[in-house]
């Protein structure tokens, strides 16, 4: 069942065309990764879906409704967004930041606290419950913020149709936590959530995504499962570089190796 339809979407800011004629359909339980070089429009696409930007034309349909017609508070119960930058200088504890994710719901403190602890456990940040957010490292802050976003749409009881939008969630994470985070997102998708995310690391995207979308200069130039999209020819074209793609010895998924400069 498709939960999100993006139809012929075009976006421009200050006269510059950032996205042209994007089409996208996302299923419940599916993880879609958007890849592409810097400035290709990955973040613009996510920000348009999350209603931070208004498209020139095209429509976004979520759960059989035009997204911009949904009132903000209703939307917040269905759609959670992790933006790229999350500056927060005030001394909330880790748990308090995660609990802010429950703002759109009125499910009561007991249920909210339970959900927050579950979301924090999923992202391995339980030990940061009592720590002050500004004193955490960049990676720890990132995982707390993701726990907040997961807590926002944690239960199917609060909203059946759920969509998770993540903009570069693994930046500033070490390799162990990168995989752990992607696994948590994967498991979260399986619980009945559609996920659209941007990722820089193509190997990581290939390992965890059901489908990849490659953007170049605001246009979608390839879409399909990782094996179809992560080919040397396509990556060399999109990123204007020379890469080697091999298959992972254990999983068989594509692994992208950088240009050989020797």
């Amino acid at each position, binding site marked *: 069942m498709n939960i999100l339809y993006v139809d012929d979407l075009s976006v421009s800011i200050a006269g510059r065309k950032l996205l042209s004629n994007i089409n996208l359909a996302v299923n419940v339980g599916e993880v879609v990764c958007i890849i592409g070089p810097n400035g290709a429009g990955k973040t613009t696409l996510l920000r348009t879906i999350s209603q931070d930007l208004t498209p020139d034309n095209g429509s976004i349909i979520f759960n059989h409704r035009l997204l911009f017609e949904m009132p903000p508070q209703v939307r917040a119960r269905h759609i959670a967004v992790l933006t790229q930058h999350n500056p927060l*200088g005030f*001394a909330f504890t880790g748990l308090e930041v995660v609990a802010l994710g429950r703002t759109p719901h009125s499910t009561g403190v007991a249920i909210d606290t339970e959900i927050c602890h579950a979301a924090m456990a999923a992202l391995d940040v339980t030990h940061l419950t009592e720590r*002050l957010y500004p004193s955490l490292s960049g990676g720890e802050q990132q995982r707390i913020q993701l726990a907040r976003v997961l807590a926002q749409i944690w239960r199917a009881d609060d909203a059946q149709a759920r969509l998770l939008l993540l903009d570069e969630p693994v930046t500033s994470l070490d390799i162990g936590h990168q995989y752990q985070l992607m696994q948590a997102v994967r498991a979260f998708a399986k619980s009945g959530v559609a996920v659209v995310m941007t990722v820089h690391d193509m190997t990581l995207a290939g390992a965890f995504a059901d489908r990849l979308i490659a953007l170049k200069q605001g246009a979608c130039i390839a879409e399909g499962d990782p094996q179809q999209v992560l080919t040397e020819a396509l990556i060399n074209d999109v990123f204007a570089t020379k890469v080697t793609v091999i298959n992972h010895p254990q999983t068989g998924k594509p692994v992208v190796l950088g240009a050989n400069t020797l």
Partner: protein
Amino acid sequence: MSQPCKRFAPRLAWLALLLLLLLSFMAAVAFGSVDLSITQVLGALTGQPLEGYGAAIVQSIRLPRALLAAVVGAILAISGAYLQGLFRNPLADPSLIGVTAGASVGASLAIVFGAAGLGFVSGLSLVSLGAFAGGLLAVWLVYKVSSSVNGTSVATMLLMGIAVSALAASLTGLMDYFADNEMLRRLSLWRMGGLDGADYWRASMAAAILVIMLLSMAGFSRGLNTLLLGESQARHLGIDVERLKTRLIILVAAGVGVSVAMAGSIAFVGLVVPHMVRLWVGPDHRLLLPLSALGGASLLLLADTAARVVVAPTELPVGLVTAILGAPFFISLLRSRRDTLR
């Protein structure tokens, strides 16, 4: 930097601040150029006849003054907390970013052009309205210039405060230049007036605004908490950010406006009190706002008591006392945050 946070239990903080407010209120009524005992104060407050002028001193001088000080202190502290949430920045304060100066200009304009022909109460209302308009213009201007998607730049915010204050000073100067004798006299009378002009009318007009602020507080807390995460983050959590910001700006202008009209410019209360409360109980607005109100009321009561006692039988302007406390506090805040200033 990995210490677990040490905070006061909320109930303890409530209790401590309520007690502090009670004690500082008693002190404000008891101390002054004539010191009264606790039994005398309690007697006067409950309307029993006292020997000498005790009852008159309490009922017609000290009680309205203490009430006004408490109300204005609470308003300023809440306004400070609102501004800091709005700017996502703990260094915002009505006096530092020029809201107080803007309100003063508005009040002066009202005095020069309107309030003369009116009676006492409607004159006061007009002055408050002028101060509200001036404060609204100032806070809106500073917010427009200094805020962006990534929060507010401290530097731009403080520089805008300087610019707005300078503009306000020049407008006030112009008014002095063009005013005739009668108006000059009224202007300077108003400027000299601080809490010493307190009466029940002023106290109740300020209290009306305080009641509005207190009633609106609960509705703002959740929105303000999410706003600290960032504007688009708050929007993604279902908050109508534009409406929240508009209401905050109007409330702050009303609060600062009425406090400037009734008690003159009093600096730093809005900076010091929310900051201390945040250190105790954390930044959650559901606690921060009511506790700041209690703390602000106590601080201004104590400052005013000090202002009346140290040079008795005359007195210092209370704004002087809060500035002596607040300016070093602000400097130390700046120093401790200089690495993180953007």
